[in-house]
């Protein structure tokens, strides 16, 4: 088998980094946000950190836009899109079928042996 140039890309992007640093790692206490004077430990709720769409978009985090489970509007749009796709496919199939039928008719008309011209009775 021939060897093609590899399209593997190393993409240690900011998004990869943030995904791990902000969203992973060991939690050694619950997600509590209280005055540090009162408790031993403070952990910021990371999801809230990136909850501002505009700010997050700036740093390349925009996955919730396409995640139907997190975006009701997207979910509705996806459902609508599926519905429209089905309708278009049905119309297209019908259209193709009609063209195909017409083509078959034309082909059979072309292939049909021509009838001999009727002889006219001369007076």
């Amino acid at each position, binding site marked *: 088998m021939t060897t093609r140039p590899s399209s593997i890309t190393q993409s240690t992007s900011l998004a*990869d*980094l943030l995904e791990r640093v902000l969203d992973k790692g060991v*939690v050694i*206490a619950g997600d509590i*946000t*209280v*005055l540090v004077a009162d408790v*031993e430990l403070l952990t910021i709720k990371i999801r809230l*950190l990136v909850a501002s769409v505009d*700010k997050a978009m700036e740093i390349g985090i925009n996955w919730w836009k396409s995640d139907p489970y997190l975006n009701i509007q997207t979910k509705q749009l996806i459902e609508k899109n599926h519905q429209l796709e089905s309708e278009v496919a049905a119309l297209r199939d019908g259209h193709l079928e009609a063209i195909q039928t017409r083509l078959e008719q034309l082909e059979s008309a072309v292939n049909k042996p021509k009838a001999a011209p009727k002889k006219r009775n001369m007076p």
Partner: protein
Amino acid sequence: MKGHVLWVYGVITKGEEVWPDVHDVEGGGNFLWVPAAGLSALASPVEAQDYQDKVIQDHQDDTSWILPRATASAAAVASVFAHTAIIPLKFATIFSNPESLQERLATQQTVFHQTLEDIRNKEEWGIKIFGHIETCINRLAEQQLARVAEKNLSSGRQYLLKKHITQSCQPQAERQMRQAADAWHQVLLNHADAFQLGNPAQETRLEDGSIPLFKASYLIFRRDREKFLRLLMNLEQQENPADLKLQISGPWAPYSFCHTLFASGK
């Protein structure tokens, strides 16, 4: 509130401390190691007044505050990880003083020691697989058209047939791409110590329109890194019936493989 609190980056086995050759989250170099119960936690002091409730809430959507701290935190963890196993703690883990941190380490020493053993000499790699649906459809369509080419169809019939085949190939192409991506995952599993599946829907399309099909993190032994990368290259170059594309990132400290140790109050 005056004074300092501690930003804690991660936990290692005591005796394996190295000083990170990077800046701390405040841009300085004031790292300290806090030892307890055979463990050692990497920390740096931060202004207590910057971590009050109100201030933190103001920072919640402030990328100019988050970004430098996230990158500094990752750099500090990576710097230590280059030398030894480290359990990365969640971003902005803050303790009020070294004593409270030591108390926590002592309380949780068993699980920390166990986790450190589990991740010793291992590293995390992120793998994303993308597929170009149009390319796959065209290839499938050409294969099917080649099968009927011998039937000497009229040009009109050929046109209609091509259109029909192209339309009908879409689900098949998607299925084939996802099956191929899953087959790669099965191969990678045999070479990984553990894995964590991600949600490919969180990824955006590539510039060429390729759609995200699969996303996972794999924990591999550090000594197997080259073998693992060669395997990826082999998959992409030779075991690629659906023209998939790979994106890899790593090596990371095992962020995805250090589970939550306990919840507050438990």
